[in-house]
């Protein structure tokens, strides 16, 4: 699991690569939270290179989203691989987390 970040068009884009499972979900959450600044108004989690996510990883995403929601920052995920999209759909999180098909779409929708 690897986390990198950059700021584009008013949004913070955090890209995650590899697998997020029970063993590294907390590390993943900490890594993402550590790159988020207090004044980031929009955070996009880019999952293009995320190959697997377990329910523990989904929980980490909920916690990240909750943290942002508390200070009314926007949050979305983008570029989900088919299998990851299927996981989101089954668990029903496609209804509670905003999903964009590409990073460009996400930035266009959220950036200022």
């Amino acid at each position: 699991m690897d986390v990198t970040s950059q700021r584009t068009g008013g949004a913070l884009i955090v890209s995650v690569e590899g697998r997020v499972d029970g063993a590294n979900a907390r590390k993943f959450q900490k890594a993402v939270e550590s790159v988020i600044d207090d004044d980031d108004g929009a955070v996009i989690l880019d999952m293009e290179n995320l190959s697997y996510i377990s329910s523990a990883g989904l929980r980490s995403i909920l916690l990240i989203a909750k943290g942002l929601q508390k200070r009314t920052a926007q949050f979305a995920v983008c570029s989900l691989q088919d299998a990851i999209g299927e996981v989101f759909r089954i668990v029903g999180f496609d209804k509670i987390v905003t999903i964009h098909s590409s990073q460009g779409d996400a930035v266009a929708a959220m950036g200022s």
Partner: protein
Amino acid sequence: MVRPYKILVVDDEPDLEPLMLQRMRRHIRAGRYSFVFARNGLEALDRLNEDGDIDMVLSDINMPQMDGLTLLEQIPKVDPNIRSVIISAYGDMKNIRTAMNRGAFDFVTKPVDFKDLQITIERTLAHMMEWREALSYRDKLVSIQNELEVASRIQQSILPSEFPDDLRYQVYGNMEPARDVGGDFFDIMLLDEGQIGLAIADVSDKGVPAALFMMSCRTLLKGVAIGLTEPGAVLGEVNDLLHEDNETMLFVTVLYAVYNPSTGEFTYASGGHDPPLLIRSDGSVSLLPLTDGIALGVVPELNYKQHKITLSPGDTVVLYTDGVTEAQNTDGSAFEVDGLHQIFAGSSAYLKAREGTDLVFEKVREFMGEASQFDDITCLTLHRDT
């Protein structure tokens, strides 16, 4: 206040005692060291047994009655955590080597250089403290491990081990936990008017918080299910109860179904759980449609949709958790829903519920081979006979 380190000095030379006390007086006054003395190995052993709080032994080798090398062998029998330093003649490598082999931590040579001795004492004490700390961590770890094992057994013991005995249908479930306590459970509830409630669930994450969440989820589900017959309403109610004060964002995916043995009606609602597998009596296999519910515990006041099918005699429904479909082999590929399809495609109308569940476990295990199990594996099978 921290007590001084207690050092037992063993030497048949009577002059060493006043000299040691004099040269170490600053450290004694500062409350860092305290000294006790013995004139030979036997006396030293007596002191060790009597005092019980000696941290370190500083011993000469050549002494009457019991020499230092014999003493070294005896010290661990009194307390394996005591560290020993040997005082030897300069260049006496043979005895020094023997002493080290017998567990001495270090040595100093005669005539004793007290500055060097003090450094050696500090190094020995530092090592001893690290050792003790490591031991206490190990003990804590062992006790946590034991508690986790107990928790895991408790979890196993709440799963149904007896299954309804009815000529009209069979139901059989099994759960195989991964190493940590955690996640999955299934339940079978006898409801009003001869209906039965079937639940299978998977809590996000592992460990003690997840296990506690799972226990409360199971209890709530059981309590709510007995009072309500609509699966969607049951999930809605349990969701609200779980959501209260759920700062941890733990969630649980649940598939809850009510089966009516008289009519064959099977009504289910999914809270973010994988769809059940339906095997018709002609051996055709399909996934039942999702009901679009969100995993429980995350968002309050949800309406859970439900879906109803009718089982004909010879039909089978298999409920499972993602421990089945996401089981990995050594190449890193997953069992997938396809694996389940393959198990049951062309199954006989006389497939038994137990046989169905056992087959899933057998095939998943076969698929995994030497790969380790990361997630709980759970499967619950319902079969309509007549």
